[in-house]
């Protein structure tokens, strides 16, 4: 595994209206690594992916992908950069009006002048890699959730990207599909020598396949380390998250006024 840095995130801040979502995030991701970004719902994980993909602009700080600052790129340069990135959306986001084959062929047809016979071979190879060569003629509506996710994975590696981002790839899958997707991410990352960033809250599956983990809470990196570090960590947040405890540094209750006051049992001070 080379240790060349592909993604560098420095002092990244992002606010939505007045709400701060990310607050001084620093990360670095190397080529050939699978990196997990974990955190509770609403902790800013997906925002981070959008910042890496250039869908939104940071309030301050920067994201560098292969040496280029994403938010400073012109639109054409950003689109050129995105051809080298893949993104797997939470529910696949397959084009529902195109067949499985055409979904995978989409980028090849849009961005290359390859002859149709070569596109056919490439698409079947990509589908073979995710085990769905036989399903190439189906429409997305005929696929199960796990299959749709695998087709989306084949689509995201269509142009052999250097970076793939996965937004909650394990959500809503049965245990078999879940490990299939997990092992595919690992195998494809190794085979294509790319970098995979997984945003997830599935602790057990991701710890078994990733090289490095970042925990995000309230817009800051609460902890980071290798899966072994994380499992052994005594830090209260990491411990609560990894073991799924209901209460801890992340409180069970949403901030509110006192319970007595809400139930009007406490006399308000005049």
């Amino acid at each position: 595994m080379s240790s060349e840095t592909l993604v560098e995130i420095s002092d990244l801040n992002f606010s939505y209206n007045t709400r701060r979502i990310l607050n001084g995030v620093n990360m670095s991701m190397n080529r050939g690594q699978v990196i997990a970004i974990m955190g509770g719902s609403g902790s800013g994980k997906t925002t981070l992916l959008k910042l890496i993909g250039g869908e939104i602009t940071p309030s301050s700080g920067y994201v560098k992908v292969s040496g280029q600052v994403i938010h400073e790129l012109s639109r054409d340069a950003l689109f050129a950069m995105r051809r080298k990135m893949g993104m797997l959306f939470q529910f696949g986001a397959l084009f529902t009006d195109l067949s499985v084959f055409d979904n995978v062929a989409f980028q090849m047809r849009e961005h290359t002048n390859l002859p149709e016979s070569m596109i056919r071979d490439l698409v079947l190879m990509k589908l073979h890699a995710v085990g769905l060569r036989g399903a190439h003629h189906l429409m997305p509506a005929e696929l199960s959730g796990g299959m749709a996710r695998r087709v989306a994975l084949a689509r995201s590696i269509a142009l052999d990207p250097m970076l793939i981002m996965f937004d909650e790839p394990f959500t809503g899958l049965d245990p078999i599909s879940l490990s299939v997707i997990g092992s595919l991410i690992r195998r494809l990352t190794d085979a294509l020598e790319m970098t995979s960033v997984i945003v997830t809250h599935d602790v057990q599956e991701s710890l078994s396949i990733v090289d490095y983990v970042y925990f995000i809470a309230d817009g800051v990196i609460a902890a980071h380390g290798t899966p072994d570090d994380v499992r052994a960590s005594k830090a209260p947040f990491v411990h609560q998250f990894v073991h799924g405890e209901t209460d801890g540094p992340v409180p069970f209750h949403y901030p509110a006024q006192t319970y007595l006051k809400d139930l009007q049992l406490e006399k308000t001070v005049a």
Partner: protein
Amino acid sequence: MPKRIIAGIQRVGHSTIEGIRRLGHATRFFLLVLLKSGTSLRRFNLVIRELFYVGVLSLIIIVVSGLFVGMVLGLQGYETLQKYGSESAVGTLVALSLVRELGPVVAALLFASRAGSAITAEIGLMKATEQLSAMGMMAVDPVARVVAPRFWAGVISMPLLAAIFSVMGVFGGYLVAVVFIGVDAGSFWSQMQSNVDFRIDILNGFIKSCFFGVAVTAIAVFEGYDSPPTAEGVSGATTRTVVTSSLVILGLDFILTAFMFRGL
């Protein structure tokens, strides 16, 4: 002043500003679609595919409605005209009503509810299921690839559908007046031929339907692209497409008619 009145005034002000903001937003989006139409022209098969969904699939409703509107016109026209002994003018009445007004307007209203709503729902759902974001992340501009072909397909099909509507209407009028009631076929057609002018009537009707096509499809694609990515967001946008298009069609029709036929 009571608080309620102030709040009421605030609401009016807020919705006025919001309406103007949306109008500006829609105008910018419309210009963006025009600007990014290059892909649609270069790869015309994208537009042809949409022409099928927007135009060909609207044919049945247009043909059937045109036929019935023409039949009703023939019946009503005959009933009134025969009182004055001029039932042979029924052909002129049917043709002029259809070509000048009913053809473009009713076809556009039907087009808004059949094709406009479908365009809005499709684009809205593509947005809600992140297909548009996914396309953007694949370095393909969704406005150029998804919106512009649908827009041009709508603009092209509207005048054709309006023409088909008028033709079916004239045929419906012929069926009722000539075949069923027995008006003389010769005078039905010859009166129509001598009283319908190509430039004043047919061309103006055609121009009207072009305007309606642009308006309906622009509203439909904007509402779809701008819809909140939720189930109720998409359903609300679909309703707004039909309501706004219908109002715009009727308003535009008055303005265009005033310009085209005033003093004629």
